């Protein structure tokens, strides 16, 4: 019965869906379990280096990792307000 139905119905293959769901899920999970605090560590260290020289809003520093099959992309996004003020610390030295 199943075969007869499939003769006419032609159900879409589900394996490609499984594959795609797994790839998305695992790229996410690997980032977490592999180096749980890596991004947070990078973010805070980058923030501390940059804020030595420029006043930045800590909330406007975004560090992201996009994991690809062969290479991964580390993206650092720092929003700097217009009319940049050099931080006092640097100005003092």
């Amino acid at each position, binding site marked *: 019965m199943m*075969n*007869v139905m*499939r*003769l006419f119905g*032609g159900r879409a*293959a*589900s*394996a*490609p869906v*499984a*594959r795609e*769901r*797994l*790839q998305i*899920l*695992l790229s996410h*999970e*690997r980032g977490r*379990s*592999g180096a749980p605090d890596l991004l947070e560590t990078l973010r805070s260290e980058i923030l501390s280096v940059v804020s030595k020289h420029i006043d930045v809003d800590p909330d406007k520093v975004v560090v992201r990792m996009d994991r690809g099959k062969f290479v991964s992309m580390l993206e650092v996004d720092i929003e700097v307000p217009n009319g940049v003020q050099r931080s006092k610390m640097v100005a003092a030295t």
Partner: protein
Amino acid sequence: MAKVLVVTSGKGGVGKTTSTAALGAALAQLGQNVVVIDFDVGLRNLDLVMGAERRVVFDLINVVQGVAKLPQALIRDKRLENLWLLPASQTRDKDALTEEGVKRVIADLKTKFDWILCDSPAGIERGATLAMRYADEAIIVTNPEVSSVRDSDRIIGMLDSKTVRAERGERVEKHLLVTRYDAGRAARGEMLSIDDILEILATPLLGIVPESQDVLRASNVGCPVTLNAANSAPARAYTDAVRRLMGEAVEMVVPVERKGLMDRLLRRRAA
């Protein structure tokens, strides 16, 4: 030089114990001295799958705690004289296993055997981490199914971080063993294919064990499938896998299920 191998998966019910028994027997059939250790404390089953359940007197915990000596706890296979079993305890809980104790037992076994196969319990708790702790190589048993692949990925991460080798900055060599594979269903896009699994897990393939009645029949009678049905497709898959472990280059065959003519015609047109 003795090799310590862990058979692991994360997910339960994918065929760790069955595979440990079959791989252990296949190695012994090729003349190697083999011991298989059951790490599933409280839920031992390797003894049952190997048909030694009525011969268990002492177990791994007894040896770890010094209640019994290692030779008292080792059970020799009735069919293969160079295959031995170290059973798990059925009554204790998993906390009875200590890292130090396991280390001692494995060091002792290394002087007596060529291969030490550790059958890991499911999960990522103490039993599973202890089973992989001293491994030189790992066999990750995976079914072509999303939850199994996800858990395998997790276990691969643990093999790269929680083993003694990983902590020393060395590698645990990993091998993927895909079990319960149905080439026909994979070809029709109903099941993850070998290529899908390899691409996702990025781990070298050790073997493909087809879904087969012979596997269940073997565990029903308590005899590893490589002994119980030596010419069956799963037995050949396990034997090929073992040859690869021993360093032989064996061509990877994707086992194809034989189908009736009508079934094939219908399926071909449906696909």
